[in-house]
């Protein structure tokens, strides 16, 4: 059987991208992770600059991320303190 091939020119899929964007906004945890990594772009160089002799760049980024996780956890604990009924 002969396949029918469409020869219409593919237009830029704005609607599809918009849908994807809307979908991605619903995924909270990947967004948080992405923001943490972005934030780490500011923190990690500072960690590296302060201790360049004792850390590799990779270690500075890992430590920066750990610092952000600690800060996030501290914020989470404050949320629990002030809105305990939500947990």
């Amino acid at each position, binding site marked *: 059987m002969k396949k029918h091939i469409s020869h219409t020119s593919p237009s830029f899929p704005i609607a599809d991208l918009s849908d994807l964007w809307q979908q991605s906004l619903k995924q909270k945890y990947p967004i948080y992770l992405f923001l943490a990594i972005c934030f780490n772009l500011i923190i990690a160089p500072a960690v590296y600059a302060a201790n360049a002799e*004792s*850390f*590799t760049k990779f*270690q500075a980024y*890992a*430590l920066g991320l*750990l610092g952000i*996780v*600690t800060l996030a*956890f*501290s914020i*989470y*604990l*404050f949320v*629990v*303190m002030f809105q*305990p*009924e939500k*947990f």
Partner: protein
Amino acid sequence: MNNSTKLIPSGTRDSRKHTPKASMGGLYQRAVRDAFRKLNPKIAVRNPVMFMVWVGTIVTLLVTIDPNLFGTVKGDPNQERVLNGLITLILFFTVVFANFAEAIAEGRGKAQADSLRTKRSDTIARKVLPDGTIQPTSSTELRRGDLVKVAIGEMIPADGEVIAGLASVDESAITGESAPVLKQAGTDISSSVTGGTRVVSDELTIKISADPGQGFIDRMIALVEGAERTKTPNEIALTVLLTVLTQVFLIVVATITPISNYVNTPTTIAILISLLVALIPTTIGGLLSAIGIAGMDRVAQFNVIATSGRAVEACGDINTLVLDKTGTITLGNRLADEFIPVNGHSLSEVALVALAASIFDETPEGRSIVQLAEQLGAIANFDRTLAKGIDFSARTRMSGTDLPNQIEVRKGAVDAIRGFVRSRSGEVPEEFEAAYEKVSKLGGTPLGICQGSDLYGVIYLKDIVKSGLRERFDQLRRMGVRTIMLTGDNQITASVIAEEAGVDDFIAEATPEDKIEVIRREQSQGKLVAMTGDGTNDAPALAQANVGVAMNSGTQAAKEAANMVDLDSDPTKLIDLVAIGKQLLITRGALTTFSIANDIAKYFAIIPTIFATAGIGTLNVMGLKSPQSAILSALIYNALIIPALIPLALKGVKFRPLTADQLLQRNILLYGLGGVIAPFIAIKFIDILLPIA
């Protein structure tokens, strides 16, 4: 204020437990599965203390994979990897053990819910259409207000009120009580029926009172399963305290690195996480929800359904118990013991009038009057079919019969009969007052009896105070709980019964309005009040009370207003519920004290060993072998103490009727001092056993 015709269960509290119909087989397997399922971060995030441990586990796992991840380690990386791996494993099991404690408490409820689900099978109901025809309808399609007919052998399709008929109903599916209960229309009690129970004689016409999924069994399933479980105020307060402690220790541990570097004792991330986990109150953090769920379960095992954990907890904080005399303090069935004639009437005349006044009275008291009158030779000398029975009402406080010859015979509360006689232009002689005072002083209930304006005498209804109540009230008094007895009896009778039973206060000649009044008065003084009730007239007071326990034999209105329903319809259970509530609070308090006291030993195990080079090695009072061994010992103790305390969390600390001060002293000594000493011994013991130098 009704007199339940149901027999009051007797015996000790434990002997009366009969709800555990649910099979507990497979409980542990299910709990183990649930313990791992609860590792899902979305569930774990609800418990801040254990979530902290869970996040710590992930971080230590990362440093197990690459020990140099957060900084180059000084020693052998492989040795470091082994230590980090062991820490990860212990932390992981700490979280799993805490989840297991919660899962096992929930598992018991789920097993009960599964057992209840089997009772909820769909049935084909015979729905009565507006034109009177019968239409077979699935029970799931019935709505509030629909009428159904249920005959012998059929299952009642949904909760409702009996509007016609009289039948025996087997309620063992929900109460565990094998004896069928009589249900009939038009009575304040015994007219509500529950879906899933079975009619075992005759036929009933029922008006459905609950939509599908909203019935009594559905609510029970949701409750025992924990689907509607919300944190109680005390749990919320404790969660905040634990979170504050976690926050403080997180800040301390996160900022310890510069200090350790300053004293030339650099620490690794895994050691810092170990220190943090050892310092935060993981024991109570892991057991907190299990204690709450187990409290609900204890109440359910006791055949009481609580609408929320808040209600169970409130039982423990109760300051005042408002108790009905009849059925709670005295045995429900008062029996006629003697007729005392007045106004020159003979004993046989009084017996004849008493018989006429009670001939339509189906209460145990009424039947006992008929029996006593017949023993004295009285025979009804009128046509029953032409006479009219006058029911007792809380308002008139008397009942009787209108005889065919228009003569009214009445019996009832003495002042009600006095008022009735005077309203018919009759006289109340002095000897009547003397007769009723004589009965009252004996602790009996006097009932006046008259025929029209002619006063005939007094019936002596013998009241029997339940055995062992005085000791129970003494216990409650020691715990700071005040008991108030409410009775429709006169002042003298009430005072004699109050004295005999040992209640703190009583209200005589009480009307249903007095009940709500006394609750409001106590609450205005900042006290928490508990009460029981079964009738529609009790519903406002049940709703007003902090803990309202409705009897299962009571009306739908009472059950909906109350926050607990007693399936055995035993009003004395309120006293047991106070004990269960207090036990829940004491258990939580004891384990919190123990958990926080544990921190001291863990602190002394870890800090002096990791900072030994900074000159605080002398604080290593336990003489632990090495920092590695100290950390592992403290963490192993930290993990094992959770499963070790699961039985105590589920069973509850043994309840002792002591004052708040005595309890505090005892708890500080046992769980505070014990919580300090026990881990010192346990950590040292684990340190000796560990094959680490």
